[in-house]
């Protein structure tokens, strides 16, 4: 990606009203989008930030209360649960997706017959709504009818799998479903990275006597740095925004055991009539995402500029 000035065609200056219109046309075309983004994104962000300093409850109100909402937010056990869950979920989700994705990509890269069949199978969950994924896994992990029953039917009667009903373990069910949905996509990213590696370098390494394992460890994987970075950014971004999956899979339960910042924000804003706290939690979420995205975009833009 590069946003550095490139040769483009500036309008030739011309006289006359029509020509002047031509010169302004590009700006006019871009103007509605620009206005929409200014209002609906940046204006709204400012508005939400503002709300987070007000005494808004069920509706926005404009009495300023300083940092009160933030103080309240950080005293709420539910918020701490949400953050703790996000830490567990985020770390496992990113970690397992990367491991499975890389592993699958390497396996698929061994001149596999049938790659054309396998790849779409690994990737199709990405086309599904999280609500669909949540529904499927909700019942599949359900002790009453799902996996546990299957095992019992197959004769393993002592098998127990009740994580989804267990306040301690339910968050790991979210991880299971989320990994199922996204790991194929991470595989695709790594596979693209692997295919981009210069074959001659690998031949040179072979001639140097490196084993397949060594070639991957010493030469291939280090060259996948950009893919690792992209995967991390995309997954972190998805994790912080995660909402639908939790709603469909556990509805943040049992109790509030699988609360995440996104579900927290929604319930405090719209169900618990604490819009000020909800706004404050949304601001924190924005800051979390910004801390991942901004350095990445900045590096991308700078890197892109250097390459040219």
């Amino acid at each position, binding site marked *: 990606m590069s*946003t550095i000035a490139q040769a*483009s065609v500036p309008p030739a200056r011309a006289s006359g009203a029509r020509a002047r219109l031509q010169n302004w046309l590009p700006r006019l075309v871009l103007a509605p989008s620009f206005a929409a983004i200014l209002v609906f994104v940046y204006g709204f962000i400012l508005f939400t930030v503002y709300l987070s300093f007000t005494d808004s409850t069920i509706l926005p109100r404009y009495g300023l209360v300083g940092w009160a909402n933030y103080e309240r937010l950080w005293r709420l056990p539910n918020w701490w649960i949400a953050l703790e869950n996000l830490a567990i979920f985020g770390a496992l989700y990113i970690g397992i997706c990367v491991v499975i994705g890389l592993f699958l990509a390497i396996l698929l890269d061994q001149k596999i017959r049938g790659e054309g069949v396998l790849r779409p199978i690994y*990737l199709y969950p990405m086309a599904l709504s999280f*609500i669909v994924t949540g*529904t499927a896994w909700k019942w599949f992990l359900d002790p009453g009818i799902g996996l546990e029953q299957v095992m019992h039917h197959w004769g393993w009667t002592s098998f127990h799998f009740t994580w989804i009903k267990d306040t301690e373990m339910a968050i790991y069910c979210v991880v299971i479903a989320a990994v199922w949905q996204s790991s194929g996509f991470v595989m695709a990213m790594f596979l693209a990275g692997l295919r981009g590696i210069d074959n001659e370098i690998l031949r040179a390494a072979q001639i140097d006597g490196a084993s397949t394992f060594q070639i991957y460890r010493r030469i291939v994987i280090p060259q996948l740095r950009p893919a690792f970075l992209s995967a991390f950014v995309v997954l972190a971004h998805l994790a912080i925004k995660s909402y639908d999956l939790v709603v469909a899979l556990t509805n943040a339960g049992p109790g509030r055991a699988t609360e995440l910042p996104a579900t927290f924000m929604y319930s405090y804003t719209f169900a618990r009539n604490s819009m000020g706290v909800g706004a404050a939690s949304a601001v924190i979420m924005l800051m979390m995402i910004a801390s991942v995205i901004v350095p990445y975009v900045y590096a991308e833009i700078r890197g892109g500029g250097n390459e040219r």
Partner: protein
Amino acid sequence: MSAEAGTTGARQSRLSRALLYALLIVFAVYYLLPLFVMLVNSVKPLSEIRGGNMLALPHEFTTAPWKSAWNEAQIGVSATGLAPYFINSILMVVPAVAISLIVGALNGYVLTKWRFPGANVVFSLLLLSCFIPFQIVLIPMARILGIIGLAGSISGLVLVHVVYGIGFTTLFFRNYYEAFPTELIRAAQIDGAGFWRIFTRILLPSSGPIVVVTIIWQFTNIWNDFLFGASFSGFDSMPMTVALNNLVSSSTGVKEYNVHFAGAIIAALPTLVVYIVSGRYFVRGLMAGAVKG
């Protein structure tokens, strides 16, 4: 790349090949399992699910759950099935995709071929807007939709999806047109074509791939959206995902798992079909949206 088995014996290599394929198949089973579970159990009677093995094929094949999910099941207060909400989703997706596509194409065109001072600022703002967590705009958006009279309407959802979609569509087209030779634009200028004619005669006819990628990306995202649907729709304007969630998580009455599964498949069908028909473009969109964005 591929690493060839160096000097290892043929037998060992055949063994490791077998292991390789076994692993790949195990993973394929893992990814297909939930789809299999949904499919198989959507054609079983409820009793067979409750008492039986979820991974077993149906003893008694029935299409009743599908019928129920489509137009009988209780969603919220009314027993309409998912059909009206499926229509809602279509009424929402088609205009939202079309508008954001056109706007994105024009933006990309201007941002690459008619740059003006400040264009980079506009692009950066659009680009960053792709990443915001939507929670940050939920509250003001609900207010604004109320003020302009679009609260709880499909038009309101279209507006929301267009506004938060143009960042991505612009990014897609900008990156595509960036690689489009500027000399072609210059040649067309010398030939006497202006702003619109260059766009319609020169750029658009060569934009097929990116149009497909963008449509798929937007279609998938908007169809699958839940947050905006849950936040801004009314009973009559609920999109499919919200209706499905209502169906599955309603706490009243018996849990009709088979109907839930049928409903989930119905909700997944449009995007799955798109994926199967145009997988290549789908992946390209994902990569462009993820890696570039």
